[in-house]
């Protein structure tokens, strides 16, 4: 024991010598935060009225559903997978939950005879549905040994087909599903008022999910297992990790988070179509990678994902806010993604 302590002490002493280098190391290790802060500074310099509680709240609440999705796919990435079916799952969840929660007064309901359901029922239902599709993804990846990119790409196409068939039905055809029950839209659009301070409910849901996922990743066996599988699947198997079961679980859990996010998304926007969620997978996956996860698996943190999502939202919101030409926004967004990851990847580069 003493031996161990000695060594740790040694380390501390030796590092005192090079404070400058340590700061640099710290900066490289926290590059993502610095990118976020840098971005905010630039926006504020261009447009000082960006600093406002409303903007702050807007960005956070717009990030809320995205962070839930990103945490889902994030777990999969940690386990060395990926999930392109995210966006279409969101779409399916949004359409199904919206279709079951249209206000009875609304004339163009998908189910005219349907009584008013407690809102948790449809939400739970889509969580289960998306969880099952996630489970199928996991099965194809873990059991059929199909590369996750291709497995979930296939699922993405399948889900779009299923959702379109569900969505595009007589008599109203491919109609955005609107007229949502006020209880449902309130569930996502209301705020929690503490004195004069009001926090959008969405932010609160997101925080709950973040804490839950943080706990799952860091404090449970399941968390360790997915890091082990992502880090070295064979070594994990030899160490007694049930690789197949844990992969099934991680994909299923992601699906359930998509289900939740998809119904929140429908409630937040107030309408849903079969194209809801289209392309979200790329944003969510990029946010994870920008936030420090790696496709080679076994690396990543919940905090990183949150920051990654925030960066994307700050880019989208901030650039619109300062009135950058929309086309130029694409270019800037692309550049920021690349630069952020390039800086971040410094920390893994062998100092040769």
């Amino acid at each position, binding site marked *: 024991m003493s031996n161990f302590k000695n060594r740790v002490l040694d380390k501390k002493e030796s590092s005192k010598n090079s404070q400058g280098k340590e700061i640099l190391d710290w900066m490289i290790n926290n590059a993502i935060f610095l990118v976020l802060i840098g971005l905010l500074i630039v926006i504020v310099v261009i447009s000082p009225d960006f600093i*406002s509680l409303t903007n702050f709240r*807007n960005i956070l609440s717009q990030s809320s559903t995205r962070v839930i999705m990103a945490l889902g796919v994030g777990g999969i990435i940690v386990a060395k997978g990926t999930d392109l079916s995210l966006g279409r799952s969101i779409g399916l969840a949004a359409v199904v939950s919206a279709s079951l929660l249209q206000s009875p007064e609304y004339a163009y309901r998908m189910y005219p005879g349907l009584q008013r359901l407690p809102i948790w029922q449809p939400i739970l239902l889509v969580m289960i549905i998306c969880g099952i599709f996630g489970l199928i993804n996991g099965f194809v990846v873990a059991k059929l040994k199909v590369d996750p990119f291709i497995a979930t790409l296939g699922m993405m196409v399948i889900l779009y087909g299923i959702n379109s068939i569900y*969505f595009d039905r*007589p008599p109203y055809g491919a109609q*955005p599903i*609107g007229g949502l029950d006020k209880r449902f839209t309130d569930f996502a659009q209301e705020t929690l008022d503490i004195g004069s301070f009001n926090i959008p409910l969405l932010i609160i849901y997101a925080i709950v999910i973040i804490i839950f996922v943080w706990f799952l990743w860091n404090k449970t066996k399941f968390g360790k297992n997915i890091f082990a599988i992502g880090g070295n699947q064979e070594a994990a198997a030899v160490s007694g990790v049930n690789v197949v079961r844990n992969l099934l679980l991680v994909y299923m859990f992601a699906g359930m988070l998509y289900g939740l996010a998809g119904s929140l998304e429908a409630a937040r926007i107030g309408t849903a179509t079969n194209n809801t969620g289209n392309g979200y997978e790329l944003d969510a996956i990029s946010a994870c990678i920008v936030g420090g996860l790696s496709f080679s698996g076994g690396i990543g943190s919940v905090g990183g994902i949150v920051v990654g999502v925030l960066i994307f939202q700050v880019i*989208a919101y901030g650039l*619109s*806010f300062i009135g950058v030409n929309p086309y130029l926004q694409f270019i800037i967004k692309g550049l920021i993604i690349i630069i952020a990851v390039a800086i971040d990847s410094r920390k893994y580069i062998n100092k040769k």
Partner: protein
Amino acid sequence: GNKNKSADAEATPKVGVTIYKYDDNFMSFVRRAISKNAEDKAELIFNNSQNDQAKQNEQVEMMISKGVKALAINLVDPQAAATIISKAKEADMPVVFFNKEPSVEDMASYADCWYVGTNSAESGVIQGELIFDSWKAHPEWDKNGDGKIQYVLLKGEPGHPDAEARTKYSMETVVDKGIQVEELELQTGMWDSVKAKELMDAWLAKHGDSIEYVVANNDAMALGAISSLQAEGYFSGDKFMPVVGVDAIPDALTKIEDGILVGSVLNDAANQGKATLELVLNVAKGEAVLEGTEWKLDENKAVRVPYVPITLDNIQIAKDCYSE
């Protein structure tokens, strides 16, 4: 094909139909109208071009090879008519374009082609008129009292003919009619509610009540903007913001009834679908294109089904489209 089929095949000829994007809400009504009118009269082969002109070209090749008698084409990209026409010409195949209009030159380059649709600019002009009329009726909407409309505009997909035409003509019409305007923001919401909501969130944070009008290229984006406005407390009490859209989709109609949405512009799907089917059926059977129909062709061989402005006063017209 040279295999001349018997009279009963002639009675229900095979007709190839492409839809630029199957799940476009408006096109889904047109599509339904086409199939409903085709019952017992034609064998339709529907194709989803997935908003990809290359796919559509391939589907046309496929249908020609399959031996259809005529084509009904909802172009993905109106400029691509020339390529479709050259394929049709080669196979001696009549074509009825619908909803997206080829250029005058392309229409003139082939005798056996026709068009059914609206006038793309018209929806913009009608939307402009809606804005003009409502503004005149509500002097209190000029919050800063400068006589100008300070507006924000949610544009559809850049390059989309409807998006371009609506963006151009709606505010141009307002100006032509004599009201000055000032554009506070114009960005693309890609026809999408979510994107529109988030743009609106930012604009409200930035301009607040300096915004006097929200103009959207379609209803989906108008609804997104409304949802953002509602979160900021609009439409309750005396806080109000005028919003207009295009399409007159059911959800928009209820918003009009609730007094939230100022108005929308109805694209008459039922009649566009009916006209398309009737024309294509005639040419597939080798009959004169307007034989037995009530339609008229204009100088560009086009049947034009008008857009209809929709406000609370005439909302029933739109509702009738969704009753059945």
